[in-house]
């Protein structure tokens, strides 16, 4: 097994609301090896962002971690105090958010915002910090960094703002970058540029990346290993080629079938019928059974485990287990 930078074991992050407990992240285990890009994919509300926020310790009340461990280089983050967690944020792990439009403070110059990240973690003077910001601006492909340093966020385009966000995340040279749907708010040309940039930065600096997306195309292009989440649980995991060539879970199959393809003539896009179940009232059996084209009577009464089908490929489905057995 490769050396693991981040290891999440049986993480449970729940929302403790007045109406009851909502298991937004339920028993999620995942690993991010050093220098690799790992993807989490799933539809809205499946717990992708909650997983990321649990790692960052950014859960908002009434959400909190109810169990499990988050190991960064063997250190359990859930056991650390808030002061130590803060030191890790930005220095060891940093995060890029979905909305570059709102992730920058509108009344502070972008250069200062990036510089703040350095000043928090490192004992350097302001001129030195500024020079480093300019250097990172160049690295992430911001032209005329001196001029951009003095700009307010509204003076920059969406693509430039996301580059600034990446610069802010990169400036302390973190070991792990969490990118929470980094390109959702951008148009496709900029999306391609930004993704290429993230990939290059990872390759050049040996940084790992946890990429969260609902876009399978982005995941296929970027990731080495993929986790598919549904209703707070991981339903399938595998390396990117296995997952895309031999999807085992009906949900993954459904997601792959609903991608727009230019090489096929189809009247309409295929969709997965139904909606994500309410997390507070999950069905007794498999959470996906009411939407699953392959569900059986067993699925409605019994909860499937995450079954390992082959080395590094697992699926939370009775069906995939059986079909695998019949192959052999």
């Amino acid at each position: 097994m490769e050396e693991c930078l981040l290891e999440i074991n049986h993480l449970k992050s729940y929302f403790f609301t007045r109406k009851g407990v909502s298991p937004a992240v339920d028993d999620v285990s995942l690993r991010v090896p050093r220098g690799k890009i790992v993807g989490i994919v799933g539809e809205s509300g499946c717990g992708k962002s909650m997983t990321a926020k649990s790692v960052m310790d950014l859960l908002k009340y009434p959400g909190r971690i109810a169990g499990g461990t988050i190991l960064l280089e063997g250190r359990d983050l859930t056991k650390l105090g808030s002061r130590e967690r803060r030191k890790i944020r930005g220095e060891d792990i940093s995060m890029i958010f979905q909305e570059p439009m709102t992730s920058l403070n509108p009344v502070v110059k972008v250069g200062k915002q990036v510089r703040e990240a350095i000043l928090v973690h490192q004992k350097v003077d302001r001129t030195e910090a500024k020079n480093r910001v300019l250097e990172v601006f160049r690295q992430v492909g911001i032209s005329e960094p001196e001029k951009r340093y003095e700009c307010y966020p509204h003076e920059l385009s969406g693509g430039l703002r996301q580059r600034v966000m990446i610069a802010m995340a990169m400036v302390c040279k973190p070991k792990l970058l969490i990118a929470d749907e980094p390109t959702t708010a951008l148009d496709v040309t900029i999306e391609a540029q930004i993704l290429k940039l993230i990939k290059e930065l990872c390759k050049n600096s040996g940084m790992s990346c946890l990429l969260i997306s609902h876009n399978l195309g982005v995941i296929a292009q970027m990731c080495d290993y993929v986790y598919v989440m549904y209703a707070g649980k991981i339903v399938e995991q595998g390396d990117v080629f296995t997952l895309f060539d031999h999807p085992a879970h009906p949900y993954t199959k459904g997601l792959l079938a609903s991608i727009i393809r230019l090489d096929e003539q189809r009247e309409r896009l295929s969709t997965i019928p139904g909606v994500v179940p309410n997390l507070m009232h999950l069905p007794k059996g498999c959470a996906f059974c009411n939407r699953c084209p392959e569900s059986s009577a067993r699925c409605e009464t019994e909860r499937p485990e995450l079954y390992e089908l082959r080395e590094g490929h697992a699926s939370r489905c009775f069906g995939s287990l059986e079909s695998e057995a019949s192959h052999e």
Partner: protein
Amino acid sequence: MRRKKEQPGQEVDRKEALAAQLGESDTLKDKMGRMAADNKLAVFSAVVIAVFILAAVFAPYLTPFDFDEMDLMARLAPPSSKHLLGTDELGRDVLTRLLYGARVSLVVGIVPTIISMLVGAVLGMVSGYIGGITDSVIMRLADVVLSFPSLLLAMVIMYTMGDGIVSIFIALAVTNWASVARVVRSETLSLRETEYVEAARSMGVKDVAIIFRHILPNCIPSLIVLFTLNVPSAILSESSLSFLGIGVQLPNSSWGLMVNMGRTFLYNAPWLSLVPSAAIMLVVLAFNFLGDGLRDVLDPHLKNS
């Protein structure tokens, strides 16, 4: 101004256009310059305020009389070349008393307002950002202060502390911080949830730094508006206190006191009340207009539209 699409080829051209449009740098001086160009009324108001401040500072040099110098031979004299704004019932020069009164009114308008803004802003931000018990304690305290009629509370404070300028400062600061704290707290509540605060937190920035570097600058436009509303209201409160006889005491001068003293002679010598009233009105309006102008240039959201 807001652009979402971007094509690499055109980037350079647009950057030049953008730079030209924005000006090379965007310093405070430039902002003031823009305000001067756009908002003549605000500039005029600033001039009015400056004139009043200068007049108050250099009062002894601007008039040949003392503020308590009586000329019993020329009581209730109408405006003349000797007494430009006439004299009061003891023959004191109204212009002189107006200038000396400006000292009291401006200081009382500005100093307690700044104190109450500082206290209110800090308490409001702490209350809104931390929440929980801290929030409850601070806000209930504010409710208590706000539940008193502010003039009554100020009178009680003045009565227990004795009159004098420091008592007025304290009385006005104590009655004003609560409303500032409320406004700032509600702003903080929404700012706390913004993604850039979360992003700052994700970078490991300390809470204190987030409050002062990310939340405070976003509150500045509303603080400026509050300041320009509170300065005139403090001036008016001082006038009311002096009018009621528990603020500034004779023979010292203040505008509220002058209005009160002139009240008795409204028919025979209307200038006695009219002149200080006009001064109060002018200063209050000037602060309000200046506040509007400042908010327009300091708020980056408004600047864009």
